[in-house]
């Protein structure tokens, strides 16, 4: 009995800490990601969870924490991937420079899309972000000399990575996983930092009550633009990881179905929770893997399950778990 309650308490505190403010949630999340290749049935799945987890985490900043339902996150995910690939393949940049320039370019793209879309509110915002992201898709489709058009971007491969003088064979899946995990760790740390920052309080206030936030003295539009850019830059980092991982960038990455998938993942996991995006990415990808074992039409089930989540479990797996286990989420 005592053992059991001890274990329950331990579980609670682990779950709680994963969402708690401060550095411990970053460290715990990283610990889970380190163990991930052994927790999941395949390493291929683990690396995808890692990548999509980062993309969705960036999106969660916008949707979960600020309450802005964008349907255009694929634009930044895709931009990060494309710029990484083009920088390496076309301009022969080293991988770290490629990643850095990809994040910068994507953040600028987010600023441009953000300036237009944050002028709108509510449903308009969702529609406009979707449309502008589709614009990026069609630009990539047309600029085929740069992007490879429908065939996707090819012709760049990173087979080894030098890190502090250390030559790492990037073709080895486990090496690749842990190199990419460094990116994920950096993203987790950055996200946690934003959430703990004064600006993190501003976006929460905007989510809770936009009118009141404005009356308190916040420039709501400018704050939305800033969070849009931050969110885009983190998702773009996920795009860089994908490009390094696959050595190709499929055009579909920019399609609004990808934006939709990101939305689904954040909802499956639990919007507005720190580790939820990784849970959501894992849930979605496992679902996809399992269902596609016996039917190629996995999307119909994913769609149906998503509908059920919207109807009955709007806080997602992780969010519901955090709520059901009575953890006093410390808030200040």
């Amino acid at each position, binding site marked *: 009995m005592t053992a059991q309650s001890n274990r329950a308490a331990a579980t609670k505190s682990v779950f709680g800490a994963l969402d708690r*403010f401060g550095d411990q949630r970053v460290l715990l999340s990283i610990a889970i990601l380190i163990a991930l290749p052994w927790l999941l049935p395949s390493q291929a799945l683990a690396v995808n969870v890692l990548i999509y987890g980062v993309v969705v985490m960036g999106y969660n900043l916008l949707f979960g924490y600020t309450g802005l339902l964008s349907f255009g996150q694929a634009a930044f995910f895709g931009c990060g991937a494309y710029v990484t690939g083009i920088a390496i393949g076309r301009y022969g940049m080293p991988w770290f420079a490629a990643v850095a320039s990809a994040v910068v370019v994507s953040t600028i793209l987010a600023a441009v899309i953000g300036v237009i879309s944050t002028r709108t509110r509510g449903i308009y915002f969702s529609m406009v972000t979707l449309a502008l992201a589709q614009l990026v898709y069609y630009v990539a489709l047309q600029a085929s000399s740069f992007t490879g058009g429908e065939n996707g971007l090819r012709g760049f491969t990173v087979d080894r990575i030098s890190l502090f003088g250390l030559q790492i064979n990037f073709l080895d899946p486990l090496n690749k996983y842990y190199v990419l995990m460094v990116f994920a760790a950096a993203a987790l740390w950055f996200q946690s*930092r*934003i959430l*703990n*920052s*004064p*600006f*993190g*309080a*501003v976006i*929460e*206030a905007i989510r*809770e*009550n936009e*009118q*009141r*936030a*404005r*009356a*308190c*003295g*916040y*420039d*709501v539009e*400018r*704050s939305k633009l*800033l969070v849009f850019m*931050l969110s885009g830059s983190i998702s773009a980092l996920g795009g860089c990881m994908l490009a390094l991982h696959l050595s190709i960038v499929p055009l579909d990455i920019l399609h609004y179905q990808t934006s939709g998938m990101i939305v689904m993942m954040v909802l499956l996991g639990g919007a507005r929770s720190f580790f939820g995006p990784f849970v959501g990415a894992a849930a979605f990808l496992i679902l996809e893997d399992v269902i596609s074992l016996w039917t190629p039409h996995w999307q119909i089930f994913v769609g149906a399950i998503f509908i059920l989540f919207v109807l009955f479990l709007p806080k997602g797996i992780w969010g519901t778990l955090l709520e059901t286990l009575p953890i006093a989420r410390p*808030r*200040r």
Partner: protein
Amino acid sequence: MSGELLRAEGIGKRFGGFVALEGITVSFEAGQLTSIIGPNGAGKSTFFNILSGALSPSSGTLHFKGCELNGLPQHRFVHRGISRSYQITNIFPDLTVHENVRVAAQALSVRYDVWRNRARLAELGARADTALHAVGLLDRRGELAKFLAHGQQRALEIAIALVSEPELLLLDEPTAGMGPEETKDMVALLERLADRRTILLVEHKMKMVLGLSRRILVLHHGRLLADGAPDEIRSNPEVRRVYLGQSEGYG
């Protein structure tokens, strides 16, 4: 006490063909509590929204401490020293009581900092607690705002407006929807606040206003009907005519 704080000159507001306000010229001294009263649809809320920057006037000018306010976006009004509360409870429901006030305090100093830890901005937290203490909510600071009773939410609303140390505090029907007990607490709170601050109050409850205010403005059909000390207003024949037969409702 001291000189003129806010001056409104010829303020008018139209919504399409509808004239909500016309030719309001009035000036407010620092350091007193002034009330604006009037029947429903008199233009009180419109006037209030103009004074707090939520609406821009169709005509006329606003001067605050000698500076013109016209064209200033709403979020800048707080920075100039004008802060407001709302008629309907308007708080951050899923944040704690303390965070509701702390985030309002933060708006004046740190807005776009994504790097520092907000917990380290201890001075803001202390200021929030001071404001909460002023409205009597300090012991509820850890609770989510949505779980407070209605009267306490209204008090929180005032703490949010108060924490920016406004030179002019605009309160829109702070006792709306309150029972007699809660109203009594709120009146006591307002009396305490009025000691040291310039407050502009929109209120429905005539009796309460007469007791609290140093000066009362009466709006009717978008125009200024009367302006004076409570005793003058009480005996003003036009005001009596407007409120005739409604006295019970405004008791």
